[in-house]
């Protein structure tokens, strides 16, 4: 069209030479790139609404209502049909329009000439697929298997269809996988030993609690929608107790706040248990009918635990322990929520077992409004169809090889026969979020090829060879559930994918197509398919029945969100535990199998080295989930730099004033950041919040060692990281 209109011009001659030189014909002829005749049916001002699901690694996993005008998102808010989301989003979710339309998104597949050089060239998807596929086939040929290819993918997007990335890697052969989770492994093992698996009550049932203990959890910042139910419960008379080393935003809302020494929560629980047993406040019937090993546990407690010891250990005075123990044991029902942060210690698993025991002896497990709530996975029974294709015939190796996600750098470097030569990174930013980022960087240096799929430039993309631009939740279909609430949320495609972005599923199909072009049969992953067909394949009869939906499309048409039926929303209501004995196991042979004490005993906390006496904690921050959201300028406009919280006593000792730059250092690394003097942190601890802060050349993990938690192998394959056993020294910079 344009070619015609321009060629009609009388003075076109002057420009012909230019176009001829460029070998492109007259400008405007590349119709695929430029302007075309307007489609007749186009109308202005068309308003539509779509259901989306926030797929981030968050308790709240919100159902979203997206307003689209003229193909453009104008407002994103919560879906009122979801009684947990309640029509509103957290502060982060409210920034989604900016996430989608920031000019700084990664737009095209690009290749970096020289890792870390910042010299990027734009390539087509076909070129990207070709480079990657050729490398995969080359590795396969050289090493006889695809084991030198390592996938590091985790929680950046929990849309079920995003498991296509794992599926794609499984479809090329046996590969190396970053296994485990930095989130919850020790606590999940603990609940696994005690009850068979971690399983939590519906958080909407906080309203049914008579007493709530938030133990190392800060839902004000990490689960605002849960905090609503907790505040409601509080206003109707439920007592809210917060146990935490820090005066968190949630602790600030408590009827009673108890400052425990970090990593001694297990001692506090055991002290309470001693008091409850001594005073015959435990539920004898529950214990005798539903548990094994109570006698052994009880005798351990009587022999080893005293309230004096617990008070000394935890810093909580004996009368307070006694009073809280009595209140908790006599409230019916009483609810405990264990935060993930509480178990990020070398004794985290053992501490969760002790708190579980407290809930068990008081008969609070299996009750609406009660429970010892940590995490759950009851609603995740999808088909995981994207992961079902298996290795191609004749794949070298026998099975996937695992490296611990939590010690990724060191284990990648240590892997041999075959070594790891290529990395695929999706839904993760390991160079910011892993401990010992310097070691992770060394592992990158060993690679022939690093491919990262992401939304935004970050530390990991900066150090990759190829970056693939991915879609936001609003540009592709999917389905999401939560590890906390009991809703299933539809994710519709609300707008066209911007630029050349693709979903992980489309990338998987595209790469498979290329692999099969280059070597037929080298990848079993389907080479094409409609995302809507893919998403329907995720639902099986069980999950449809659980949520009372006919299909994904049915749910899309009917509110976009559905709650699981009540048969599963009270954890362990049937009191059939998934342990070897079928009972709650105070005494766990499974624990012994994994090298632990059979009972919920106290194991010692990590002791501060002499040169580095100050604990540095890095809890979650209200404007971010790991390295997502905080970098958005809507949030940078509120808080644009990291800071270190320091108690006035410690600050005085170190001659540090509010706003002074402080150097924080240990044997792993150092960084310098401004001080915020506050009584919210104890005087033996400093706090730096987690998150990717734009414009600084460090992350909170610079001083974090890959120190293991005590548990994790049973439920998650690998142990977690004791992020909060990070000891440092500080000085005025």
């Amino acid at each position, binding site marked *: 069209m*344009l070619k015609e209109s321009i060629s009609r011009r009388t003075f076109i001659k002057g420009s012909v030479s230019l176009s001829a030189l460029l070998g492109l014909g007259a400008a405007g002829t590349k119709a695929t790139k430029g302007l075309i005749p307007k489609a007749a049916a186009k109308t202005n001002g068309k308003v539509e609404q779509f259901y989306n699901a926030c797929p981030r690694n968050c308790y709240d996993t919100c159902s979203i209502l997206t307003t689209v005008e003229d193909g453009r998102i104008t407002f994103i808010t919560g879906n009122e049909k979801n009684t947990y989301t309640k029509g509103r989003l957290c502060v982060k979710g409210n920034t989604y329009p900016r996430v989608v339309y920031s000019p700084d998104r990664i737009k095209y597949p690009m290749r970096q000439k020289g890792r870390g050089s910042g010299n990027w060239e734009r390539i087509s998807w076909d070129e990207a697929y070709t480079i990657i596929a050729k490398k995969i086939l080359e590795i396969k040929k050289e090493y006889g298997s695809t084991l030198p290819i390592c996938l590091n993918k985790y929680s950046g997007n929990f849309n079920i269809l995003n498991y296509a990335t794992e599926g794609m890697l499984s479809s090329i052969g046996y590969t190396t996988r970053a296994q485990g989770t930095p989130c919850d492994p020790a606590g999940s093992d603990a609940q696994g030993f005690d009850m068979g698996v971690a399983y939590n009550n519906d958080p909407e049932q906080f309203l049914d609690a008579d007493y709530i203990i938030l133990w190392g959890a800060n839902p004000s910042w990490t689960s605002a929608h849960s905090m609503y139910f907790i505040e409601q419960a509080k206003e109707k008379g439920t007592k809210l107790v917060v146990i935490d080393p820090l005066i968190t935003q949630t602790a600030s809302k408590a009827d009673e706040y108890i400052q425990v020494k970090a990593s001694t929560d297990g001692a506090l629980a055991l002290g309470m248990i001693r008091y409850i047993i001594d005073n015959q406040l435990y539920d004898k019937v529950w214990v005798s009918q539903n548990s094994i090993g109570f006698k052994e546990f009880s005798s351990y407690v009587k022999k080893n635990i005293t309230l004096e010891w617990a008070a000394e250990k935890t810093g909580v005075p004996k009368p307070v322990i006694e009073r809280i123990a009595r209140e908790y044991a006599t409230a019916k029902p009483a609810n405990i929520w264990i935060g993930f942060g509480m178990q990020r210690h070398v004794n985290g698993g053992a501490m969760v077992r002790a708190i579980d025991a407290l809930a068990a002896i008081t008969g609070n497990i299996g009750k609406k409004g009660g429970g010892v709530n940590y995490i759950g996975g009851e609603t995740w029974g999808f088909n995981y169809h994207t992961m079902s294709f298996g290795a191609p015939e004749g794949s070298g190796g026998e099975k996937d090889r695992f490296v611990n996600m939590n010690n990724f750098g060191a284990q990648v470097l240590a892997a041999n026969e075959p070594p790891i030569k290529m990395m695929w990174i999706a839904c993760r930013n390991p160079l910011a979020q892993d401990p010992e980022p310097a070691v992770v960087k060394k592992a990158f240096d060993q690679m022939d090829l690093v491919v990262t799929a992401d939304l935004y430039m970050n530390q990991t993309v900066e150090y990759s060879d190829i970056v693939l631009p991915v879609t936001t939740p609003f540009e592709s279909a999917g389905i999401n559930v939560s590890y906390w609430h009991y809703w299933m949320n539809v994710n519709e495609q609300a707008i066209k994918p911007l630029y050349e972005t693709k979903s992980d599923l489309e990338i998987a199909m595209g790469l498979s197509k290329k692999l099969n072009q280059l070597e037929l049969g080298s990848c079993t992953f389907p080479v094409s398919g409609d995302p809507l067909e893919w998403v329907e394949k995720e639902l099986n009869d069980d999950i449809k029945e659980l949520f009372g939906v006919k299909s994904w499309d049915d749910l899309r048409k009917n509110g976009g969100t559905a709650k699981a039926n009540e048969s599963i929303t009270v954890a362990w209501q049937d009191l059939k535990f998934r342990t070897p004995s079928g009972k709650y196991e105070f005494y766990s042979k499974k624990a012994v199998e994994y090298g632990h004490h059979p009972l919920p005993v106290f194991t010692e906390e990590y002791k501060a080295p002499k040169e580095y006496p100050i604990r540095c904690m890095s809890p979650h921050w209200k404007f971010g989930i790991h390295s997502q959201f905080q970098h958005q300028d809507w949030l940078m406009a509120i808080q644009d730099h990291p800071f270190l919280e320091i108690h006035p006593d410690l600050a005085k000792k170190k001659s540090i004033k509010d706003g002074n730059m402080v150097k924080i250092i240990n044997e792993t690394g150092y960084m310098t950041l401004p001080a915020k003097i506050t009584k919210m942190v104890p005087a033996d601890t400093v706090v730096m919040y987690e998150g990717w802060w734009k414009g600084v050349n460090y992350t909170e993990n610079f001083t974090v060692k890959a120190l293991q938690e005590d548990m994790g192998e049973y439920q998650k394959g690998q142990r977690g990281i004791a992020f909060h056993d990070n000891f440092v020294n500080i000085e005025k910079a």
Partner: protein
Amino acid sequence: MIYTEINNINQEERLFMYQLFLHYYRGDLLKLPSAEWGKLLEMLERQHSLQSNDWGRKAIQQLQNLTDQALETFEFDFNRLFVGPNKLLASPFESSYQNFEGTVMQAETLKVRRFYYYEGLQVANEGGLPDDHIQFELEFILHLLGSEDKNKVLQLFLEKHLLKWVDQHWARIEEHSQNQITLAFGYLLKGFILLEKSLIEGEGPLC
């Protein structure tokens, strides 16, 4: 800034310049072999309007002294400024300037879209690419150029859109450009835009 021969810019040269910028922003020049750069330079040297303004002369001077290193790093710098994957140093989207926070696909984008619609056009990948990418705005202008009856539309479009933001765009190029070619094209743009503005002020025919 002295431009003595403003009126000398003829329609042919304007068409040439718009086409050149379209090719440039579309990325067509990224793969231009080094020998061809000489030919392009010759063409530029023949443009009267360029020789007659400081910015044009500066641009040509840059290109005359083009080093191999500049040719090698041109693409990287171009991408840092206009493409990514990092934060764009000189966003090529109008809404990044008209809209205070630089968000794309906002009201400004839709206003540009309405201009295209008025002329019976649309972006091929509408919704997928913001309509106010400079490449599309240039292509739209090329569409209007040469039809006298489009004079009014072109003037409106230039005044309400392209000319409203390219100065800021150019300022960011000048601030962040590390390469002779991207800088030269920045100068070319700056000089050309001044000529276009004076053409409008002088109420000369635009089409």
